[in-house]
Every structure is written in structure tokens, then in C-alpha cells.
């Protein structure tokens, strides 16, 4: 037991997650079996639906775009030791920034509207996270509670704004006016017909830039260094002359601004208007994405893609196998989180043991240990 060695790196980051993912699908397969459908067919449909054709892949990417933003939001805060549960609310209110700019500038050109909307959405989302950050830094209020509370407050605020302020008198549905073409983010399909009618849009470029930006920020800037010191050891960061309170406020603001980018994708890229509850829980998926991606941009990109694929593949499943309900999709997603996130250690010991038998010197050690055990 004592002599088990850490797994080789590739096994740790590729093999183990693959086994866990396989387990998740195996258990999901049982659920599919329960309703009398063929699990193999189901998985084929999911994979085909998510990656097999342009439209489907486009949808996968569109969902992944949201999850990258919310995942990064959680991750950035996590590096500074802060648990931002408020990504949902931050993304939601950021819609105000996006819609105001988009509607104001929709007679110009997206090259003007989009950058300004990014700033506006970032500012509003950032502000919505800054306040909990400020309360934590100055008043010691636990950021976990305040961000949860701010999710609820955001929901109330947005309903008010949409219904009483943004909704034109002529529309029935609670939604803002529609953005004209000049205020919309171009769709990828305008450049690659491959993507069919899917809503994936240039926001994904922002997402990729955000991934790279966060990587540089966290590991290649002095600010990121300070952030990580704070996250790992707040006493040491004070010792190092880092202003913990300022770091908390700035980090939360960055985190909120990242979450706010969901508004660009949704409001300006897909819906072309502000609708109620357009975030649709992406903020919470972001928590799972960040945790599964180990708070690293590469991991987040992969996890976001996985969840995007599950969302889109799940939708495909509903089309192809009508017996599959949307709740089953949620169950499959939950199982993926459970096996690849929470129970990732399930197969580690077994894997470690089998790896020990691979190289001769480790083999000798393994034998020595097991014989020692029998002696003792």
C-alpha cells in the first residue's frame, strides 16, 4: 500500500479520465436500458449529434463557448482561493451591458458594437462580482453566500429590467427589442457554411482569447503570481506585500467580467435580444467545468467541450429517440460529473498497482512490498 507510486503523467491526465468517462457512460447506459432503448445506439447518437455534422458540431461549440466563460470565471476566482458560485447571476446581469450597447449601436457595424459591448458586459458582470468581493475584502462576508444571494438578486433585477424597462410595449414575451444586424455578433456560418444553421458565432474567438489570456494572467504575470499566493496562503501573501483586499476585489471583478461574456454569446450572438433567464444555468455548469478542468485553461476547454457535446448530443438524442427525455440527459451529465469529477479516485489505486508491474525496478519493489507485508 505504502509503496504505490504516483501514476505517470499521461495516465493521470488522459487514461484515468478516459476510464472514468467510460464508467459514466456505462452507468448511463443502464438508465437508457431501463426505458427499453439501446444504449449503444444512444451513445452513437450523442457522439454523432455532437461532432458528426456541421450543425451539430456548431451547437456543441456554441454551448462550449458559454461554459468556457463560466468555467474560467470559477477558475480565476479559485486560483485566488475564492469560490465564486455567482457566475450565473454575473452572466445574467451582464446582459444589460450587452443589450444597451448593442441596441444603441446596431445601426453601425459589429466591429464597433462588439468590442464596446464586450467592455460593457464585462463591466456589468464584473461589478456584480466586485460587490461580493468588496464585501469579503472589507467586511469579511463569506463570498460563497454573497454570490449565491447575488444570483437571486440578479434574477429579480433582470425580471424588473426586462419587463418594466427594456420590453417594448408592442411585444408580449418578456424580452427586449431585437438588435439590428449592425449590433449582432457575426455567425461562424457566415464564413464557413460547414456550420449550417448552428448559432456558434465569433464569441468563440473571445472564448479562445479568454483561455489564452487566463493562462497568461495566472502563470505568466506578476498579478497571477500574487493571486496564486493569496489562494494558497493568505498569510504568506500579506508577508509578500500583496494587498489581499485589493487582490480579492480585482480577482472577483475579472471573474465576473469573464462570466459576463456569456451575454455576448447569447444576447448578441444567438438571441439577438435580451430574454429572461437566458443564462440557463451555464454558471453552475461552469463550476463543474472548472473543477473537472482542474482550473487550467486546457482542462477547462476540454471540459467545456465535453459538456457542450453532452448538451447538443442530448438534444440530438431527443430527436432521434423520442423516448429519451430531457431529464435523462441531465442524469447522464450528472453521472459524468460524478465519475470524472467526484469519484475520479475510484480506479486510481487499481491503476497504480497495475502500473507498478510494468517496469522491472517497480516490479521488484512491488514484490518486495507485498512479501514484506506478509512478513509483518
Amino acid at each position, binding site marked *: 500500500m*505504502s509503496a504505490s507510486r504516483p501514476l505517470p503523467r499521461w495516465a493521470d491526465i488522459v487514461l484515468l479520465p478516459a476510464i472514468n468517462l467510460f464508467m459514466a457512460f456505462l452507468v448511463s447506459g443502464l438508465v437508457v436500458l431501463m*426505458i427499453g432503448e439501446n444504449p449503444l445506439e444512444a451513445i452513437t447518437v450523442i457522439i454523432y449529434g455532437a461532432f458528426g455534422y456541421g450543425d451539430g458540431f456548431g451547437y456543441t461549440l456554441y454551448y462550449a463557448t458559454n461554459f468556457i466563460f463560466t468555467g474560467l470565471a470559477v477558475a480565476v476566482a479559485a486560483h485566488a482561493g475564492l469560490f465564486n458560485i455567482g457566475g450565473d447571476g454575473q452572466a445574467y446581469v451582464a446582459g444589460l451591458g450587452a443589450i444597451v450597447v448593442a441596441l444603441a449601436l446596431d445601426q453601425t457595424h459589429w466591429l464597433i458594437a462588439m468590442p464596446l459591448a464586450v467592455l460593457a458586459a464585462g463591466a456589468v458582470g464584473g461589478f456584480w462580482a466586485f460587490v461580493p468581493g468588496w464585501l469579503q475584502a472589507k467586511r469579511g462576508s463569506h463570498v460563497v*453566500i*454573497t454570490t449565491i444571494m447575488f444570483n437571486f*438578486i440578479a434574477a429579480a433585477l433582470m425580471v424588473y429590467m426586462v419587463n418594466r424597462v427594456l420590453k417594448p410595449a408592442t411585444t408580449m414575451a418578456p424580452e427586449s427589442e431585437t438588435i439590428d444586424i449592425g449590433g449582432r455578433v457575426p455567425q461562424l456560418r457566415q464564413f464557413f457554411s460547414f456550420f449550417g444553421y448552428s448559432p456558434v458565432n465569433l464569441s468563440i474567438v473571445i472564448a479562445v482569447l479568454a483561455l489564452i489570456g487566463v493562462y497568461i494572467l495566472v502563470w505568466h504575470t506578476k498579478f497571477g503570481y500574487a493571486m496564486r499566493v493569496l489562494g494558497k496562503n493568505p498569510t504568506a501573501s500579506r508577508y509578500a506585500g500583496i494587498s489581499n483586499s485589493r487582490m480579492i476585489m480585482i480577482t472577483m471583478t475579472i471573474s465576473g467580467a469573464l462570466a459576463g461574456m456569456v451575454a455576448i454569446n447569447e444576447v448578441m450572438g444567438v438571441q439577438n435580444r435580451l430574454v429572461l433567464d437566458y443564462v440557463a444555468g451555464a454558471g453552475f455548469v461552469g463550476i463543474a467545468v472548472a*473543477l473537472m478542468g482542474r482550473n487550467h485553461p486546457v482542462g477547462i476547454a476540454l471540459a467545456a467541450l465535453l459538456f457542450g457535446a453532452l448538451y447538443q448530443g442530448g438534444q440530438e438524442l431527443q430527436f432521434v429517440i423520442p423516448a429519451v*427525455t430531457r431529464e435523462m440527459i441531465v442524469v447522464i451529465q450528472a453521472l459524468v460529473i460524478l465519475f470524472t*469529477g467526484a469519484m475520479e479516485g475510484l480506479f486510481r489505486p487499481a491503476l497504480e498497482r497495475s502500473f507498478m508491474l510494468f517496469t522491472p525496478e517497480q516490479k521488484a519493489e512491488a514484490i518486495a512490498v507485498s512479501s514484506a507485508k506478509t512478513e509483518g
Partner: protein
Amino acid sequence: MDFAIMLSVLDATLRLSTPLLLACLAGLYSERAGVFDIGLEGKMLFAAFGAAAVAAVTGSMWLGLLAGISVSVTTALLQGVAAISLKGNQLIAGVAINMLAAGLTTFLGQTWFHQGGRTPPLGEGGRFPQITLPFADELAGVPIIGPIYAELISGHYILVYIAFLAVPITAFVLYRTRFGLRLRAVGENPKAVDTAGISVVALRYQAVLITGVLCGFAGAYFSIAQGSGFGNNMTAGKGFIALAALIFAKWKPVPAMFTCLLFGFLDALQIRLQNFELPVIGVVPVQAIQALPYVLTVVLLAGFIGKAVGPKAGGVPYTKER
């Protein structure tokens, strides 16, 4: 506000704070043992479903309650395996449980009852009645005390009384028993517990089991007391509010009760303030009133509570070197 309305608000406060209180105490046990639990919501939802499903089929509220508790305990065990034995991330375990509950309850409900995930409405016997305490009717006429006893104290579901009874019991267990001493210790310094020759893992499992039982009560309250039957996602985020209450109360049972009462009160008040007209401003937007409990929580937290420092070893799986 006149006396009758006040009674009505306080009466609703008790009803609304009960599930919060049960969930909050549930969370208290595992978090005091060093296991963070954001899966309260999921366990309650599972329990609500299990309770309603069994109560609907058997027509017995007691079997329903038992089922709710068993389902919740099983879920707690699954979470325990992930968070304690497999040393997985406790937060992810909670997130996974919540999602699993959201999906699986509706899915199973639909598969079994074909009512869109709902369970059939419960008849007599399947749902907890409101208990009239002795002499409630006789005393009702007595001024002040009468109505307070008859309307506020009497006439609740038995689970309400259980919830409030659980507070002194929890306080007693935590501060006056061997188990409580060890529980508090393992959340602060598991290594100290280990070197004292007590199994950290066993203790944490026990704590998580109690969490499961209490979440079972809370879930059952939703579906077979307050409601009559299970509805999709009927816990509606109460698990998170309970968690906030737990932090607010600094992980202590009696403050937890007062916090839950406060949250319940704000909720009850919110419901009655929807058309409230302020002198100058006029009718307050309903959204503002609905946001009130949350805003107030933030304000109170910032103004009065200050830093909440949880059990030191919370969130960290215990690894024993061998």
C-alpha cells in the same frame, strides 16, 4: 400590522423555516465533521421524491417518510464514498448529487407514474395532517395567549415539531456527548482524532449519515407535509439557502435555528408585502420585495456577522499516510 396578520406571518414563518432548519442542521453535522456539503439540495429532492412516491403507492405517510429518509441516506452514502473514501472533491460531489437528483427524480417519476415526473396527488393518510395540540380549541378564546397557542404553536405538521426539537437535540449531541466531541474535533483537526486512536473515516461517515437522515425529513416535509405529492425540482434552491444560513449561524445549532427563522420570516413577509404601498415611492416593484430576503442577508452579513470561519479541516479529504 394588526395582531391577526402578525400571527399569520409568524405562523407562515414556522412553516417556511422548517425545511430550511432541517437542511441546515443536516449540513451542520457533515460540515462540523469536515465534509462540505453543497448537495443538501439534491438529497432533499431525492427524499421528497422517495417519500411522495412511496406514500402515493402505499397510502402511508410513515412509510413515505421512511422511504424519504432511506433514499436520502443512500444518497448521502454515495456522496460519502466519493468525498471520504475516494477523497474526491467534496464540492464536485455535491454538484453531481444535485444534478443527479434533478434529473433522476423526474425521470423515475415519469417512468413510474407517467405524470411528467410528478407523483400522484396524495390522499388522506398519505400526507401528514396538521396536528392540533391539546387544549388548542379550549384556549383559543383566551386573549393574546389563546390565539398564539391555538394558531401559532398548535396546528402544524409533526415534522415542524420534529425540526424544532432537533435543535436542542443537536446542541446536546454536539456539546454534551462523546460523539459530539469527536465530531467537532474531526472537523477541526482530523489528525488529532486519528492519533487519539479514533477512526476519522468512520466518524465522517456517521456524520454524513445523520445529514442524510435530516435531509430525509426535510425532503419529506416538502412532498408529504407542506405539499401533497412530488413536483419537479420542488426544493427550489432551499438547500443553498440552508447552506447560507449555516454559514450565517457560524455552524452552531441554536443560531442556526434563529437564522432559519429569520429567513423564513423574510420569506413569509415577502409574500405579504407584494402589494405594499410606501408613503412616497408608491407601490414597490414586486421584484424588489422578492429580492428583499437576499438583500437583507447580504446587509446583515456585512453589517453584523463579520467573518465566518468554518471548521478548519472542512473541505479537505483526510489522507492517512501509511
